[in-house]
């Protein structure tokens, strides 16, 4: 079951933090408050990021790796930990499998080779490896810098390998934590909004699981997994997918290679969009369902990055004809001949509790009384787990051992070339959010619109000045944007957000290559060139 293994409180009491591919200072500001308390208490912070971000300003060490070399760096650290005799042999023997293969796999990754491949000096890699392995408690936290690559899954597995190697999981203050980018990314996955899962991460291709859901629902659940988002776009291309129902997503602006994505959406036989405002995607739709703003105008739950299920409450009536998502879905079901009765969030939640064992103990009454509960929480006497995988420390281990994984370093799909010599990576800024559907409405004094951020070296070489409008071109498209000279970028690296798609459609530039395992797009690594306008 996938989720951050630790609680926020633990990062205040840990001794070493690897913040990997995450600018949490801006993207998870209140989590960063907890992290800073840990730093103040003496934890060493390593910021591993191609950009010297505002998070890295707080780090003991900034490891500025080249985009897409995370596995090389993790494997080099793994080799160094083994070579220095710092692996946690007892934990490895008790709780893991595949260590010998792992050791053989990382053996070629000497500090020298790792430094050459990643751009991080050997001494820095060594220092990080030693600090991580020798700290009594240590945590790895990451965000989309790890997952928005064609090697998304392997990137995560390479970090899990480091935790297994050092025993930094399943204990207070040690753990592996993906910081979720949206308020219910965790909960959406937990509820089965994944092509191969039902609620509670139960696999749809498992007979016993399906039997349980069949019995509850009185219908036969299809026994095969569906498509993930990227596969759905591929199916649209093949015209195998002809109708699409989009709830609270703006793929016309958020998908990589925007021209192509919009073209595919336009080619559908039927596009239904349910959202709080008329997004660019809604403007392409055949049918639009105006929806309530879930956080303020609906009842329900969301699940945070520490696996905490918390109550969302209706503070306002939705405007005009807008209805909450549950009511719209119930009405649709009724139109299709299924009367589910009156839509009620608690009734639906109690169905989740019956079907998903890790949510069994989370009654609305307990969620209210306890400020939420962390899964797994099997029954009403269970307090919820503050950290996961403590079973790995039981002797003998309870349940299956945790496997080391084989992970190969592969550079980003789009190599830099003479024609496209600059690496473009994308991300968020503090006051903005995604395509601006929500944040566009409030007047942030720090808003400065879209820019193409370039290093001082590149700006000098290109002969462009701060504020000058330039054309940015990739193999897929081009945009115009003002230059912002940014000293936190190393030579060869450029940065854009995707917050202002009406002004600058950044995703015309990005590449829609995806991880073959889960379909996340490689937003973090496109190749571009910058041209002066009128020069």
């Amino acid at each position, binding site marked *: 079951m996938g989720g951050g293994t630790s609680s926020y409180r633990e990062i205040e009491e840990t001794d070493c933090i690897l913040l990997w591919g995450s600018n949490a200072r801006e993207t998870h500001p209140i989590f960063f408050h907890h992290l800073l308390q840990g730093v103040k208490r003496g934890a060493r912070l390593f910021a591993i990021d191609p950009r010297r971000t505002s998070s890295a300003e707080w780090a003991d060490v900034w490891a500025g790796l080249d985009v897409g070399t995370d596995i090389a760096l993790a494997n080099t650290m793994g080799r160094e930990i083994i070579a220095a005799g710092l692996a946690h042999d007892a934990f490895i023997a008790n709780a893991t499998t595949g260590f010998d293969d792992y050791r053989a796999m990382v053996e070629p990754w000497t500090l020298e080779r790792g430094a050459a491949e990643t751009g991080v000096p050997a001494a820095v890699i060594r220092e990080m490896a030693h600090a991580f392995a020798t700290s009594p408690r240590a945590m790895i936290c990451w965000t989309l810098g790890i997952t928005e690559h064609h090697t998304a899954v392997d990137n995560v597995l390479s970090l899990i390998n480091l935790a297994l190697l050092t025993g930094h999981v399943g204990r207070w203050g040690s753990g592996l934590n993906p910081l979720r980018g949206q308020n219910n990314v965790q909960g959406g996955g937990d509820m089965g909004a994944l092509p191969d899962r039902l609620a509670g991460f139960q696999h749809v291709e498992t007979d016993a699981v399906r039997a349980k859901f069949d019995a509850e629902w009185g219908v036969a659940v299809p026994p095969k997994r569906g498509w993930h988002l990227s596969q759905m776009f591929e199916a649209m291309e093949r015209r195998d997918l002809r109708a699409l129902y989009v709830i609270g997503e703006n793929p016309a602006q958020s998908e990589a290679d925007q021209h192509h994505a919009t073209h595919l959406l336009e080619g559908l036989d039927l596009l239904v969009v349910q959202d709080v405002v008329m997004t660019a995607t809604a403007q392409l739709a055949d049918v639009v369902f105006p929806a309530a703003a879930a956080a303020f105008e609906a009842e329900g739950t969301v699940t945070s990055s520490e696996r905490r299920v918390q109550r969302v409450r209706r503070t306002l009536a939705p405007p005009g004809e807008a209805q909450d998502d549950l009511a719209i879905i119930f009405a649709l079901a009724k139109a299709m001949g299924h009367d589910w009765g009156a839509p009620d969030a608690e009734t639906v939640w109690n169905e989740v509790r019956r079907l998903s064992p890790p949510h069994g103990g989370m009654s609305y009454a307990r969620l209210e009384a306890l400020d939420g509960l962390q899964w797994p929480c099997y029954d009403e006497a269970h307090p919820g787990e503050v950290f996961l995988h403590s079973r790995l420390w039981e002797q003998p281990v*309870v349940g299956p051992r945790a496997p080391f994984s084989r992970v190969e370093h592969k550079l980003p799909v789009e190599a830099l070339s003479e024609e496209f010599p600059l690496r473009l990576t994308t991300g968020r800024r503090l006051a903005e959010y995604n395509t601006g559907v929500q944040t566009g409405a*409030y007047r942030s004094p720090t808003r400065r619109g879209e820019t193409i951020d370039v290093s001082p070296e590149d700006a000098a070489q290109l002969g462009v000045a701060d504020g000058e409008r330039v054309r940015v071109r990739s193999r897929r498209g081009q945009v115009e944007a003002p230059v912002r000279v940014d000293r936190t970028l190393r030579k060869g690296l450029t940065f854009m957000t995707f917050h202002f798609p009406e002004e600058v459609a950044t995703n015309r530039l990005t590449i829609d290559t995806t991880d073959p395992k889960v379909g996340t797009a490689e937003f973090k690594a496109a190749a571009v060139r910058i041209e002066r306008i009128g020069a």
Partner: protein
Amino acid sequence: MSTDSLWYHLPPPSTVVPTPPAEAPRAPVALSIDGREVEVAAGDTVLDACRTAGASVPTLCYLETLTPVNACRLCVVEQEGARVLVPACSRKAEPGMKIQTASPRVRTARKVVLELLASSVDLSTAGELTPLLEEYGAAPGRFGAGAATVAQPVKDDNDLYVRDYGKCVLCYKCVEACGTDAQHTFAIAVAGRGFQAHISTELDVPLPDSACVYCGNCIAVCPTGALMAKPEFLLRQAEQWAPERQAVTDTICPYCGVGCTLTVHVQDQQIVKVTSPIDNGTTRGHLCVKGRFGFEYVHSEPER
């Protein structure tokens, strides 16, 4: 892939429910509050002991989530054998202490503190202080009409919040919330000495030119309304701010995955203020700019 693997089956529950490490036991400390024997734990403050004893001690610059700065002197109590009054919020409880929380000396000290503040500062929006003035019989007028004040124009230099330092009692809470107790942005500090002491950005520049990131955590801790989010400020100007008509509901922030609790204040079907509970384990009352101010899209007409 075989369907036996972890990929297809949830791992079994741990046989032991994981818990945080036990905190080191703290020695009991027995002391007397207003003649009542109470017991607290070593490291607790005199204020903790007073609250355990049920004695009411007013505070102004103290907040559970901030480091005590001993600025306001409103929480002073009398300790038997001590030369001066002690600030209850920061003084650690010691065995055998004999504390008086409402002796004439204590009451006089608090009265003078309140008079000095009320004579120099506009306390019209300092809801918690007003009843204290009456309780302690404070007469701020006794310094005369010519008493110095900190009256000054409101600083209204951005779209999210205003700073009315004519209402500032220099409790330092905003400085601490902006600094090492929470936000670590360090956009503001106390500048100047004596009566000229004031909260200032670097070189007194307007907020948009400062390091401010508009988290508004300073607003959340301000006890006097000197710092105020724009919607409340505008409604008050129009004499339409009506807390008694506001519905207050907790929900979860719609933005990132941290899951901050938002306390949403709704007046006439409009969100007019967002705060977070000070005892919430995730936020401790603090939010970021999106959580505190990013709700406007809900009211965006005509898009919705």
